[in-house]
């Protein structure tokens, strides 16, 4: 795995400060192509901050981020979206007063190329592109299981549908790397299992590399091939789900030092 060609996303020494607070500190992190990778960590560990750095919402103070071997830090969010890196949000951020279809169409932006004058003059190229986009959006709506609900406003959809629609909007981008910020937040175990299945399908069927932030350990352990743990902006562990489960530092970070030693003793006694 030393060959950089294997990695779709590479971060070297990424540091992001907010005043005196170092939210992400010297973070080295690589995502293998076609994999499902999770970032976990306690609240405030810098996970979402890192997502914001990758998608260009924050500039980084030090280090660099490469996507497909090209530097993307410093690019604006829309440029990064045009490279087919896209994301969902922890607290769903749909365009609430737009219909489901319109949300998907906005997600398709990097794929659309016509200009406003084409629309004003009713030029055939523009019409054709709009029609094709609409057809694709309908297909996508079907894929995410919202067929028939295209004309409903996003805010009027039930919670689960909103989660799906948000992923759908990201998929409309035809992403090569998809960043999911707590995709199963607020779901019951059944729904989480379904979501896991859906996320795995995205990788298997569409070939999308997936990076996710997740708190639900069942999801993390069930779906990820690699797990990276952040605490106070510092990477404290990295490895397969099994390795992470046994890692002392991780247990300490989550449950405190005492708990880690307490857990260690019976494990050592076996």
């Amino acid at each position: 795995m030393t060959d950089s060609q294997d990695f779709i996303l590479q971060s070297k020494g990424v540091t992001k400060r907010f005043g005196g607070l170092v939210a992400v500190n010297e973070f080295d992190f690589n995502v293998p192509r076609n994999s499902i990778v999770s970032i976990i960590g306690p609240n405030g560990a810098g996970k979402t901050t890192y997502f914001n750095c990758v998608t260009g919402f924050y500039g980084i103070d030090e280090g660099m981020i490469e996507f497909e071997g090209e530097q993307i830090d410093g690019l604006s969010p829309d440029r990064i979206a045009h490279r087919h890196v896209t994301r969902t949000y922890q607290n769903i951020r749909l365009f609430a007063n737009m219909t489901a279809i319109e949300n998907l169409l906005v997600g398709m932006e990097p794929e659309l190329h016509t200009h406003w004058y084409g629309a004003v003059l009713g030029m055939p190229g523009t019409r054709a592109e709009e029609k094709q986009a609409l057809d694709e959006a309908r297909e996508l709506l079907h894929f995410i299981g919202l067929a028939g609900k295209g004309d409903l406003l996003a805010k009027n959809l039930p919670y689960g549908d909103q989660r799906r629609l948000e992923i759908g909007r990201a998929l409309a981008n035809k992403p090569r790397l998809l960043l999911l910020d707590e995709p199963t937040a607020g779901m019951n175990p059944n729904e989480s299992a379904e979501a896991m299945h859906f996320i795995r399908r995205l990788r298997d069927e569409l070939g999308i590399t997936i990076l996710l932030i997740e708190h639900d350990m069942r999801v993390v352990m069930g779906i990820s091939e690699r797990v990276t743990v952040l605490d106070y902006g510092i990477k404290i562990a990295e490895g397969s789900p099994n390795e992470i489960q046994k890692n002392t530092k991780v247990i300490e970070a989550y449950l405190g030092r005492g708990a880690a030693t307490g857990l260690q003793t019976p494990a050592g006694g076996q």
Partner: protein
Amino acid sequence: MATLRDLDLRKILRMGLIAGAITVIVGAIGLLELFGERALVADVITMGQVILYTPVLLIAYMTAKDIPSGQTALSLVTGLLTGVVSSFPVAGFIFLASAVNLRQFLPNVSPTLISLLDFNAGPVIGSLIQVAAMGTVGLITAGFFILPEKHRKPLFNAILWTLVIGLFSEILSIRLRDFFGVAFTRLIFTGKALNPLVAGILFILIDGITYRMGRQKQTLSERIAAMPPRQQKRYRLASMIGIFVFLLILPLLLGTYLSEVINNIGIYVLMGLGLNIVVGFAGLLDLGYVAFFAIGAYSMAILTTGGSLGIGNLTFWTALPFSVLMAATAGLILGVPVLRMRGDYLAIVTLGFGEIIRILALSDLLKPYIGGAQGVLQIPKPPFFGTALIQPGQFYYIVLAGCLLAWFVSSRLSDSRLGRQWMALREDEDVAEAMGIKLVATKLLAFGFGAAFSGLAGALFASKLTSIFPHSFKLEISINVLSLIIIGGMGSLPGVVVGAFILVGLPELLREFAEFRLLMYGALLVVMMLAKPEGFIPSAIRRRELHADKEIEGEIQSKVAGLGE
């Protein structure tokens, strides 16, 4: 069975006092006296009486509305009591005015006003009459609810429209005289008001027509929706041609004065359509919109004037694209520094920009070029195949063409990719950017289009007036345009037209209102925000945004039911 014990006395007291207080205020600021003399139906009812009793009527309506149907007595007593309570503040006011010289503080409390309130019968008897009168109004209003549902709406329409026609008697009578002669007009109007007999006939006619329309099972739009698609298309085409022909012959029907009014409305429609793109579509609150209007107007003025300030001596038609281009460029230039600003900050900066442009126009610095406070004079009217379009009825066609163009562009854009980008920007700027929308281009296009429409309006304005001065470009215009969008309905194109008619057209027709214009704006805006925040003709989206509860529940249920099939 409900008894009189169910009377909600507390509510009656509260609402009645509110109605009475409104009546007193309306009187004290001089509105009542101003309209007191204007007869709507000769010898029957004056505008003053309408204004005097409208608060009571509305409040009695609101109080009686919540009483379940069938409880006739309860409803009537509620109405009566509300009316009676309403008269208390008025009576108090009459006594106060007779005891103290209120004119020291409230110059509008004249003897005429008091005589209007106390029927010239002195404080005691006058107050008693007023109690009876307001009680009767309350009683009648409540009685309205006893009528079967099918009669209510026609009756309401008949009263409303007869009064509205009465209100516009003066203008209508002038037009009728031009078409049918004096003798005929005298038959219909007595002085400046409707003839009582004619009013009666009108009343019965409107009542009958609305009653018949209400009896039909389907509304017009339902019937159109039920037609096969081809027939629908034909119907739509026919109605569009109908509207177009109507718009073409409109100046002939309206005559000079009303054509001038329509031209003013049209210029505001143009500005409204432009600001609607910026505020309604893209959600960028621009309070300095008048700046682009001024730039368009000054460009047209300087390029075409025959006076000493003129450059180029262009004709209206060659100067027009330059003016629009100048305004659009200014829009883009303003757009650049405010790209990163949102909401309140954007509003404040644009507000400043509008003032800067006005003050620049006034300044000594630019006086040699644009005339300072003396403005630019001798701006020619648009030439058209050898003649100049001097009459308002001729100029109308240029305004109409401009409005139709702006409407067409707006409606095409709102359904386009750019329209979607604007909407996304309005909803969540950060996410819109993360989805690949180029914020800079999208925002600048919104500012550019808005400014271009406003510049077009300004160019027409300059040519219409033939002279322009800096004081024509006050902040008030920005506020008017914003208000008309809000009242019409944000993001709605028909809303812009309706808003312009209400805010620009009505004050032109009701000249007496002139000094109360801003008060009326304020009152209208407050009432609208409370009662109908989505505007008179909301865009489909806004309606759903603001009335998400009932309507949408139904909509979702029907859609979900449709899914199951």
